[in-house]
């Protein structure tokens, strides 16, 4: 059951749009930086496969410029 954290960089001027999109995704928890164009993101999925699908979905978001992995954890099923 993977839990991963990322720093997400939006395209210029797209932070709010990206934040909205990430907020609606069930497996995502987001915290935007107050004073910079950066969003901290934690994902929680049931399986490794589900995690990979989610990551592909994240990378396809148009307002997202860069997804930088910070940490990854795994818990027993």
């Amino acid at each position: 059951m993977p839990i991963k954290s990322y720093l997400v960089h939006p395209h210029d001027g797209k932070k709010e749009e990206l934040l909205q999109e990430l907020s609606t995704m069930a497996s995502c928890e987001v915290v935007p930086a107050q004073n910079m164009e950066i969003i901290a993101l934690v994902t929680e999925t049931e399986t490794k496969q589900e995690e990979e699908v989610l990551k592909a979905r994240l990378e396809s978001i148009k307002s997202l410029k860069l997804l930088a992995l910070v940490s990854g954890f795994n818990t027993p099923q």
Partner: protein
Amino acid sequence: MQTTLTDRRSFLKKMAMASAIAAAASMFPGIMFAAEQEKGIPKNANLDWKKGPCRFCGVGCGVLVGTENGKAVAVKGDPNSPVNKGLCCVKGYHSIMALYGKDRLTHPLVKKNGRYVKTSMDEALDLIASKMKETIAEHGKDAVSIYGSGQWTIPDGYAASKLFKGCIGTNNVEANARLCMASAVTGFLTSFGLDEPMGCYEDIDHADVFVLWGNNMAEMHPVLFSRLLDQRLKRGVKIIDFATRTTRTSTAADKSILFLPQTDLAVANAICYEIIKNGWVNNSFVEKHCSFSKGLTNMGYGLEDNYTFTDKPEKISFEDYKTFLEDYTPEKVSKLSGVSVRDIKYMASYYGDPNKKVMSLWCMGMNQHTRGTWINNLVYNIHLLTGKISQPGNSPFSLTGQPSACGTVREVGTLTHKLPHGVVMNKEHREFAAKIWGVPAENIPSKPTYHTVEMFRALDRGDIRFMWIQVTNPMVTMPKLKRYRDGAKKEGRFIVVSDVYPTPTTDIADVILPSAMWIEREGMYGNSERRTQYFEQMVDPPGEAISDTWQLIEVAKRLGYEKQFPYKEETHIEEIYTEYRKHHDNIKHNMAPLEVLKSQSGAIWPYVDGKSTKWRFNAKYDPACSNGEDFHFYGKPDGKAIIWQRPYEPAAEEPDNEYPYWLNTGRVVEHWHTGSMTRRIPVLHQAMPHAYVELHPDDAERMQIKTGDAVRLTTRRGEITLPASINERGVPAPMQVFVPFFDENILINDITLDSFCPISKEPDYKKCAVRVEKA
């Protein structure tokens, strides 16, 4: 079982988010995640929120601590604090976690036959008092000493000074702030006659240009740095990073200018040369408010035991000063410093532009310097020549590293030469302090004894036999550490250490006292901008831990000073603060009453007629100005600030064929100084788990060293091996290396040099010669 799994997942999610935020804090200077503070608060929690200053660093951010069932469970930036306006850095945000490390010291420990034995607090305090009596009887008053901290609260430092200087009658009182801001103090005293910045953080909201002198603000003062970045967004201000190493601050600045170690002295003089040459001097300001002096040169570096130095100031004329500066043309200084002529002129032009308000900021880079007093003087020279001082936005500003380096060490005066008001060398000052303390004036010796380095040398020599160390970790922080560690372990020494966690310093203790930490007791801190802030006790300390103040009071009573320490346990902090205020009861330093500190986010002294004084020496803001002019530098008898003629002189130890690199040491954003608290906060430890040595990529390539490879550093003091870091957090200039000092398992200070500024006695941790090899 399900609950346990859910808790674990919840914990891991929090850890994951905290890791992301910690990583962001280290990658993006000044980044803030205020929303996260609210999210971390338990849902439906009925929290009791109380205000206080953050316990880390000298910025003095206001925080709100949420408690529930006797435990601190949440912390957030205080939106009402004018310091941080609701923001927190990564350390502040995790600050309450430092209270709850698994290995908190909870009971006194006494070393018996080489093993620590748990004992009662009463028994431990009895032992300390009896050892002090015994030591004084056998070796004299100057054989006992106390070594405290800029993390001491104001009452802690006050009780220590009163006990040792007023009652016992020894000036063996020092604090670790000697290691971080003593040069700022002597800089202020020599230039202005009074300590601490004339301005305040509000200067940031007015300045057009910020020049950071060897000051990695993005990591060391992140909340203040975020205020600079905010002003750039709002007003397009310029940030110039003038440093020896490329850091997070450099990359966030508009301009990064690198200089060779120690040559900031020459560059500052070159800026003054340019100001004069280009007619940028504010002549009326200089004529009315400045005088010129020079002091002794070739002072040495304090490397020998019992080294002494006394400067002999001599008045000079403006013309003499101009002649002196002829040696500091940009062309000459460029060759020495590695700074281009263009960049020297670029900095000078901002200082010289009458339409630009300039703030100079510095911290350890200028203070931990064998000519620390001089470089402080030289930056003041720039501001004095241009008249850019004591006005909103025109501000030379020395930042401090600890929460109460100003409030306790500088204002209470917990240094060997100091009293709460004035110095021990002055008869009137001794009499004034003695009257308030209720002791004969003759009790206070008229001569200072040992500054910090010399105090540990005295312990090694055996001149000092008893040392009480509170809230600090000298067995990590002392330069040339091995000598002082070996000295402290010698037979016939008795060491008491008051702390909250085991450290390398508790390892040398004969008695370890568990201390109440931060909001586990009541107290006050004083930050970099002369702001005194109060915090109440919010939670109980663990086990038998008690505050450092109360430890001192209990020992004072056991030594027979009940009359001088009559305070009640329930009210002693208020009683001490009220007594302490008497020392500063004048228009130049009045401290705000306790009820004011309780009702708002602190107050800036001098607090006069119900108001903080934001800009000293400016008649518009400072009621102590009395000369009828716009400015009055009333710290000096003639009311004038001094422009000092101070030359460039080399460092105590410079690279040579045998030790060809410069070694520079410092801090990282994740850890509070020696890491004794922040390394017990999992997310911060995880973000920065161990020390490393930064190398320039060209040097690394030449030696075939990659990140993570073991590197051996050798100096004349010894050698140490640690992993390499290349193109990561910071990048040193070629032939220079940088090592952070937070890691007790990699004690970089074993190989640093104990040279110091002869005037301030502050060691230079930024410069010594080192050999670098792939291990």
